[in-house]
């Protein structure tokens, strides 16, 4: 052992002793887990019960269970690819191995052995990913259990193994990306090339779930890369034979050993500059999240990644002053078309979920859970279109040279997003409705009527003041915490309260013999009234925001 090794060992053990015993750490973790469990027990159990009961209907169990197991290897392969992409992209700006601010300030400038300093952190992150992945796999097993009549122990343990293996491989790969500038450069340039793979896997999953038997393309897809080896742990391709399960298990084990070894070897190469910038960024993001400012945290991350993908398309300024805010919103959307893509994605997902809910129901009445998830997708679609409103709300002084009141500008900011969302919703509704055998025009009109409600609810959420985090813990009953949650989730809650019963009413009215036009008319009336209330809330909240910012 060299002098530097001894020095490193002594300093690190001294730091460990100074930072408290392991028992203290365990006690802290246990306390956090206890508080989380308590809150879940008090506030979460009705939701959990509702979801599980919704899933456990016999009708859904039969249909979904039949479709689930055969499509599981492809579906899980898709999940693996998405997790891997996410972890590797995260490693470009953050990474699994991040030192704390004090460690960066005090330890990096000392002659401590970098490898000995970073190995324990890398190993802890990989082990943590294994545990988290296993828990996620267990949760997946619970869901499989809810829809499949006979899941079997192998499938349950396989799901846990899949989660753990995915976590380990993804975090180890991310560590390599973080530590190697060559790998990081390659990921930065070519990460999107992996997207088509996930799309192909998702498409094959959907086709397989519709009942088509296995074809050669499915086999190639699951054997050609590690995504398929991992996904065969719970559901081997050849269910009758153990051979594929054994081979896939061996391949996963080999891959895990190789990638973890590589991660631990390369992590010592992390430069002080990289560790410093990552620690600084993490400090800022954690600070933003601590005060409930998720938007600032997202902007910090986006900036660290090199900004959003944008265009330089130009739209001429309108002659009428009444169109100026709409022009501004339109420019924001054409300059960052990714927002429209996200919005289209969520609108389609929402329509699809409600469509599946209708198809899965014997009476063509979708489960409230399906409608709720569909509405939430619609809400997310709306939030993607409201960036300019958020920028204004961050710093109302940015509108100082405009002659309109801040609240008037806020109201006008809903116009373009409403039209865009209505258009996207109409297309998504018509396509999905047609696919599920519903009336195309009725499926298109529903989202058009819902668009003002969704944009209005998202705008109510946009024009809020800083989150009152000081309310957390003011009382022993959790009312302060509940108030803060309500404060943060007012938009989604408004969407759900208005649209879930109204949408359910359409289906039950049609089932009872009401003409679809009449049912949609009632739905549209409710939506218009709710949008009016939301516009009033936007006006009052934006006025308050402008006053508070002065």
């Amino acid at each position, binding site marked *: 052992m060299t002098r530097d090794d001894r020095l490193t060992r002594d300093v690190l053990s001294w730091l460990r002793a100074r930072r408290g015993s392991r028992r203290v750490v365990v006690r802290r973790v246990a306390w956090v887990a206890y508080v989380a469990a308590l809150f879940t027990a008090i506030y979460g159990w009705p939701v959990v019960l509702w979801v599980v009961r919704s899933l456990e209907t016999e009708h859904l169990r039969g249909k979904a269970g039949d479709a689930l197991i055969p499509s599981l290897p492809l579906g899980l392969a898709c999940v693996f690819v998405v997790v891997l992409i996410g972890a590797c992209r995260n490693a470009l700006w953050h990474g699994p191995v991040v030192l704390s601010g004090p460690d960066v300030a005090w330890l990096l400038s000392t002659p401590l052995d970098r490898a000995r300093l970073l190995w324990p952190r890398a190993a802890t992150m990989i082990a943590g990913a294994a545990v988290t992945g296993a828990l996620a796999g267990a949760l997946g097993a619970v869901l499989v259990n809810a829809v499949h009549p006979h899941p079997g122990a192998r499938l349950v343990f396989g799901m846990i193994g899949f989660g753990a293996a995915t976590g380990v491989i993804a975090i180890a790969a991310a560590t390599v990306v973080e530590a190697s500038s060559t790998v990081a450069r390659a990921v930065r340039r070519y990460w999107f090339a992996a997207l088509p793979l996930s799309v192909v896997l998702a498409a094959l999953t959907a086709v397989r779930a519709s009942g088509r038997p296995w074809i050669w393309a499915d086999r190639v897809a699951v054997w050609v890369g590690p995504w398929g080896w991992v996904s065969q742990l719970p559901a081997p391709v050849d269910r009758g034979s153990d051979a594929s399960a054994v081979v896939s298990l061996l391949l996963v084990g080999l891959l895990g050993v190789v990638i973890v070894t590589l991660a631990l070897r390369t992590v010592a190469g992390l430069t002080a500059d990289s560790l410093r910038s990552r620690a600084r960024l993490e400090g800022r993001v954690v600070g933003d999240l601590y005060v409930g400012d998720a938007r600032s945290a997202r902007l910090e991350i986006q900036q660290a990644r090199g900004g959003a993908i944008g265009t330089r398309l130009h739209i001429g300024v309108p002659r009428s*002053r009444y169109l100026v805010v709409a022009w*501004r919103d339109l420019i924001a959307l054409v300059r960052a078309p990714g927002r429209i893509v996200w919005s289209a994605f969520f609108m389609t997902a929402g329509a699809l979920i409600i469509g599946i809910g209708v198809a899965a129901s014997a009476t063509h009445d979708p489960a409230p859970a399906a409608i709720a998830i569909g509405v939430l997708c619609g809400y997310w679609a709306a939030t993607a279109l409201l960036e300019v409103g958020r920028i204004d709300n961050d710093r109302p002084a*940015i509108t100082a*040279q405009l002659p*309109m009141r*801040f609240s008037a500008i806020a109201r006008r900011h809903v116009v373009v997003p409403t039209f865009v969302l209505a258009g996207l919703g109409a297309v998504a509704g018509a396509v999905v409705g047609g696919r599920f055998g519903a009336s195309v025009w009725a499926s298109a009109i529903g989202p058009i009527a819902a668009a003002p409600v969704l944009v209005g609810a998202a705008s109510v959420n946009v024009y809020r003041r800083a989150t009152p985090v000081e309310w957390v813990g003011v009382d022993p009953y959790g009312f302060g915490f509940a108030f803060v949650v309500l404060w943060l989730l007012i938009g989604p809650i408004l969407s759900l309260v208005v649209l879930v019963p109204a949408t359910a009413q359409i289906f039950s009215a049609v089932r009872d013999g009401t003409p679809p036009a009449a049912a949609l008319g009632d739905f549209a009336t409710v939506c218009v009234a709710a949008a009016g209330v939301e516009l009033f809330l936007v006006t009052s909240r934006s006025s308050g925001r402008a006053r508070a910012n*002065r």
Partner: protein
Amino acid sequence: MLLRAEWVSHQYGGVEVLRDVGCGVRPGECLALVGANGAGKSTLLRLLAGREQPSQGSVYFQDNVINEDDRFVRRNVAAVLGDPIFYPDLTAREHLELVVAAHGQGSHATERANQALHSFGLSERGDELPAKFSAGQKQALFLATALVRPRLLLLMDEPEQHLDPEARTHLADRFRELMREGVAIVFSTHQPDLARAAADQVMIMEDGRVVNSGPTAIVLHGDS
């Protein structure tokens, strides 16, 4: 008087930052607020812009209590207070076009924007995002957004910051042009030179109080 403040006092969290301040400007006049950091210049400008209401006293714009939310005030008072802020996805020209069009002059928006860019030396950078500008260029664009729009009153908090000497001279020239057009100007500054070059009235502030005021030639006589 176009704008007048009468016995204005203001507190932040119980701390008095302004005490019994009075001032006013007529159309075509320019008043410079001169003082060290913490003298109360920025607070006074915020009160004059109607962004806050004073704890005591009143500020009148055309004989009505000023309030930033008032439509007439927003149309006629251009205030450049605080740090320059811009939309991340609009170019410099589009920022100016937005302001001009919002004031009902959309048919001249591009022409007016180009003129403003030219007068602040930003012609070459009109199609770039302000995020890529230097601090001085950002400040110039920030000033341009207030000068490109119609207004009766112009309020500016340390407009000279980050500007190079040439741009400061241009700013003083621009102020004099605006005064000839009948625009009233109130600005704060650390630079007696800018006050001497542009203002016809000066108010010296210290610890939230007015310690001297009057015509520039008299108040700043011999002050370097």
